[in-house]
Structures are given as structure tokens and as C-alpha cells.
């Protein structure tokens, strides 16, 4: 009897065990491969810079995936927001913040509306809106890199508090708020409900249209916040921002243990996924592994984790 219980426990908690075990193995192996990894406080700060803006965007994507949808437009909205902010900052100062957020929210609203009102599969709809966002970024920047040298802007992300840059606290704050929303409010329950059983959610009187639109708007809002933080961190914006983020973002969500089919996992898990992916990324780049190969590795990890996390007995028909 005992081994059966043990096995069942393993299977039920697979989504939690794999990321934690992965993280431990990762840290140990990176330490072995490179003695400088995490050896000094400076290297910790570098890692924090690498993962903070990323965590903010990943929180938004996790919400969308929990609902059973997908959002391709998050990296593009991230880029667009960074670009709008960088372009407007010299003339508007911090008043460019509401403009940027409004544009991002508009994108989220359109994404949600296309899915919930026009019944278009979200990956298709967001692929289209991501093209629009890319196009807009191209149009407003003319394709040029924009640099902001204002120290006040840079201070948003780089002020040191208790030895860590402020961007870390921004990211953690966003993460905590999102975790709270998903786990302790009816809205969070509704997100899980839509991901778990769409018909049931409708019958239970959940306003599917509203929840879907709100979730996509939150996703876009977080993408914008992430974009602005990143712009502050790198002192400007360029057309390559966010381009290579799609796969790592997606990988960090599924590596955390959120199933692609929705309803399983959570934002609290995404922190683990982000840690793993960003540490892996920095570890691999320390080992001088080509960027393209790194992307391939992330893609493979994402697919393997996606296969492991989807609870197949729940879904009769997989499209």
C-alpha cells in the first residue's frame, strides 16, 4: 500500500517537484561549471536585473494561460510601451506614463474583445495584434534607438534599497499582488474556472466576457510596466527589445508548472519558472553558448514541460 500512496503523491505534485528539483540541479551544475556563478553579490545583482522586468511580464502571461488562452502580443506590447515611453519622455516627462499604459490597455482590451466577443482563438487574435504593435513601434520610432539620459528616469529601476536595485521590489510587488488576486479573490477563482471548465463557468454565472477582457488587459498592463522598467534599466528603447522574449517567457510559465490547457498552476509558481529560465540563460551565456542554441534549448524545455504538466486525463479532445 505504501509505495502506491507514494507514487500517487509524486504524480499529484509533479508540477511542483520538477521545478524545485530543476532549480536545485541547475544551481549545483552551474556552480560546478563556473565557480564565479553566484560567487559575489555583484553577480546576484546582475541576475536580479535579468529577471525582474521578465517576472512582471511573465505574471501577465501566466494569468492569460491560466484562463486557457494564449497571448503572443505580450513581448510586442512590451516593446511598444518601452518605445512610446522613450519617445514621449523628453517632451512629456513622467506624464508619458499614463499615455503608455493607456495604449497597452487598449491592446489588451482589443485582444480580449476579439476572443470573447468575436470568438477568435486567442493565439490567432494576439498574433494579429502583436503585428499591429510591432508596426506601431516601427512607425513611432522610425526604427531608431531612443536613449534617455535623465537620471530621474534611471532611478526608477536602479536605486539601491537594502543592497538590491529597486526594480527587484517593483517586480516582487507586482508578483505578490497577482498571486493575491488569483488565490484569494472571486476574480481569481473565475480565471481558474474559465480555464478549467468554460461551460461550467458560464453556468455558474461568471461573466465570461468581462473576465476575459480584464485578464487580457491585465496581461497588457503588466507588459507595459515591464517595458517601462526595462527601458529605465537600459536607459532607452530599441527595436530589439522583447524580440527574443517570447520563447523564454512562455518557457518560464510552463516550467513553473502552469498547464497550457488552463485551470492548473498559478502565478505563484511562475516565480520559480522565471528563476530557472533566467539562471539557465545566464549560466549558458557564461559558458559561451550561442544565443540561437539557447533559444532552441528553451523551446525544447518548454515543450517537454508542457507535455509533463498537461493533465491528459482531463481533456478528451486535444486540438
Amino acid at each position: 500500500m505504501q509505495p502506491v500512496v507514494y507514487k500517487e503523491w509524486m504524480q499529484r505534485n509533479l508540477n511542483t517537484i520538477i521545478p524545485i528539483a530543476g532549480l536545485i540541479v541547475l544551481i549545483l551544475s552551474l556552480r560546478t561549471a563556473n565557480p564565479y556563478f553566484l560567487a559575489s553579490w555583484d553577480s546576484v545583482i546582475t541576475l536580479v536585473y535579468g529577471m525582474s522586468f521578465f517576472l512582471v511580464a511573465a505574471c501577465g502571461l501566466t494569468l492569460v494561460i491560466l484562463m486557457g488562452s494564449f497571448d503572443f502580443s505580450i513581448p510586442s506590447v512590451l516593446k511598444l510601451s518601452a518605445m512610446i515611453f522613450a519617445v514621449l519622455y523628453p517632451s512629456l516627462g513622467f506624464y508619458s506614463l499614463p499615455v503608455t499604459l493607456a495604449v497597452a490597455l487598449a491592446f489588451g482590451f482589443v485582444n480580449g474583445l476579439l476572443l470573447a466577443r468575436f470568438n477568435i482563438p486567442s493565439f490567432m487574435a494576439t498574433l494579429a495584434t502583436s503585428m499591429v504593435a510591432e508596426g506601431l513601434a516601427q512607425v513611432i520610432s522610425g526604427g531608431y534607438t531612443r536613449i534617455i539620459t535623465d537620471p530621474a528616469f534611471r532611478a526608477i529601476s536602479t536605486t539601491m534599497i537594502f543592497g538590491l536595485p529597486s526594480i527587484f521590489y517593483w517586480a516582487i510587488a507586482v508578483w505578490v499582488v497577482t498571486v493575491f488576486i488569483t488565490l484569494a479573490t472571486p476574480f481569481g477563482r473565475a480565471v481558474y474556472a474559465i480555464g478549467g471548465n468554460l461551460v461550467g463557468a458560464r453556468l455558474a454565472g461568471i461573466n465570461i466576457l468581462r473576465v476575459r477582457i480584464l485578464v487580457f488587459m491585465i496581461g497588457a498592463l503588466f507588459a507595459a510596466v515591464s517595458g517601462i522598467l526595462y527601458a529605465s534599466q537600459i536607459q532607452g528603447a530599441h527595436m530589439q527589445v522583447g524580440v527574443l522574449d517570447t520563447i523564454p517567457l512562455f518557457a518560464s510559465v510552463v516550467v513553473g508548472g502552469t498547464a497550457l490547457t488552463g485551470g492548473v498552476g498559478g502565478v505563484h509558481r511562475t516565480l520559480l519558472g522565471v528563476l530557472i529560465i533566467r539562471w539557465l540563460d545566464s549560466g549558458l551565456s557564461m559558458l559561451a553558448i550561442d544565443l540561437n542554441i539557447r533559444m532552441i534549448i528553451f523551446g525544447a524545455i518548454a515543450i517537454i514541460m508542457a507535455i509533463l504538466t498537461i493533465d491528459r486525463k482531463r481533456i478528451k479532445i486535444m486540438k
Partner: protein
Amino acid sequence: MKRVEKTMPRVSPNMVAVWRLFKTNPAIWTILGLVVIFSAIVPERFLSTSNLVAILRSFAVTAMLAVGPTFVILLGSIDLSFMGIWMFGGALVWLLYPYLGLASILVYPIFGLLVGLFNGVVHVKARIPSFILTLAVTAVFAFLTTYVRNVSGVLTLIVPAYGFLRESPIPYLPSPFLLSLPAIALALFLMFFTKIGTYLCAIGSNEEGAKLAGINVEKYKVVGFMISGFLTGLGSIAIFVHLGNQTRVDFDPSELIRGLAAIVLGGTPLAGGMGGPHRSLLGALIYVLIFNGLFLLPGVDPNHLKLYIGALLLGAVVIASKALKGALIT
């Protein structure tokens, strides 16, 4: 439909068939409308021989990105791996040319078939959503292509020996168009002259029902993906030649959208169960006509290209979403 029945006694059966064809394929109206509009606004530029040849060329390219995946969309799944097949297949041709000589172009369809087999088997056995699986496959192959280019230290993966393919034996018909014909013919054959097309539609419209009717659903899903991969591989030869005997080396999602947009514009709903490659051909023509005409219009800034593509696709998916009414969409 009812009006057709009423007019039946007065009109000959042929006319009814033509009327029905037009009625069930709004794409035909759209094409005629676009041609009329652009001929009216910019007649001398739109109707020039060189422009018509250019339309035929880009039609071949767009159709080749759309015809294969249509078979998977019939299933209600989606295949985004066509971009990966096209990009990395070209890299393989370039890599294998020193060993295989001219025969290395045949790597394209074989590679496509293998990728399709892989997609199908993983999708069916591991049961993960097809769009994310095939997207990852495309991403992996796209980055691999860039990697091959970087490692080899060359700028483009060009194979000059295939220069003869670029010369068309028939005037006014560009060679990419001629090279796309085998894939088109094969697609139409598979759709209308074998049971595969019917089975794929059956699975797409009601998977449980198809299973109960005795269709081996898993097998035909794999077959669908394999057809998609093979046709994309075959068609990629045309794109390869169109681009000057080379392949793309940098990943651009807008190309991904090009194929999807053609399918959707042609009237194959993403929920599956109806439509087919013939509609995707019409859709490809619509897509090409819109873009061709749009850039002939005065005052269109090529810098805004991406914006237009996005807006166009957005419009296309909204129009095509009519067919998805009532389906449960995530």
C-alpha cells in the same frame, strides 16, 4: 439556398451550379471586387504585364505557405511548422549540396514529411496543443537556421547551381508559379479524389462522432500533419527559387501570419470541419491582390508595412470568425 431551389425550373442546372459556387465561396466575389477596384483606381500600374507577373509570383509563394497547413486546420488543429520547414529545409539543401549535388533539392519534401510525422505523432501521443507544439518546432528550426548561417560564416545560404530553375520555359508564367503547380495538384487530388479529405473534415467537425463511425482518428491526424509537412516541403521549392535559390535566415512572424491569413481569408474556419486547399488558393490570391494593390496606391509608406499587415490580418480574422459562432474558443 432556398432561393436557388426556387429559381431552379427557370435556370439551367449549369447556371445553378455556378451560382452555388459563387454563393458558397464569397472569396470569389472578393477577388473580383478587388480586381475591379484596383483596375479602376490605378489601371496603368495595376494591369501592366510586369505587375500581373509579380502578382502570380507572390501568389505562388503565399499559396505554398497556406496549402499544406490547410489540411491540419481541417482537423481543427493548427500547423505553424511550415515556416520552420521552409527555413531549415533550405539550410539542409545548402548543407547537403556538396554531397548530393542537384538532387539535394529533394531534401525539402522529405524533410517536410519527417517534420509532419514528428508533429503528428507528438501531438497525438503526448497530447499537447498543436499550435504550441508546431510553434516551438518552427522556432527551433528558425533559430537552427540562423545558427547554421552564423557558424558557417556566410551571409546567405545561397545555392547558385539551381540558377536554371529560375528561368521559366513559358513566357509570362514565372517559374515559382510553375514550381508550385505540383503541390497544388497534389493537394487538390488528396482533398477531392481520396477519402483522406473527407475523413479530415469528419474529424474536424466531430471527433467523437468520427471515432464512433470507425475512423482511426489518431492515424488520420498523423496523416493530416504528414500531408501538411510534405506539401509545405514540396511548395518550399517554389519559395526557395523565388528568393533567388536561398532560404530565409532570420525569423519573421509576419511570414507566419501570411499563410494563416490566406487560409482564413479563403474561408476555411480555424475550428475545422469545412473548407479545403482550394479555398486557401483563393485566399492566397485575395491576400496578394490586397497587398499588391495597396502598395500601388499613391501615398503608402513602406515603413508602415507591418502595421498594414497586422491591421489586414486583424480584419481577416474578424471576418472569418463568423464561421466560429457557437464553438468553444479559448
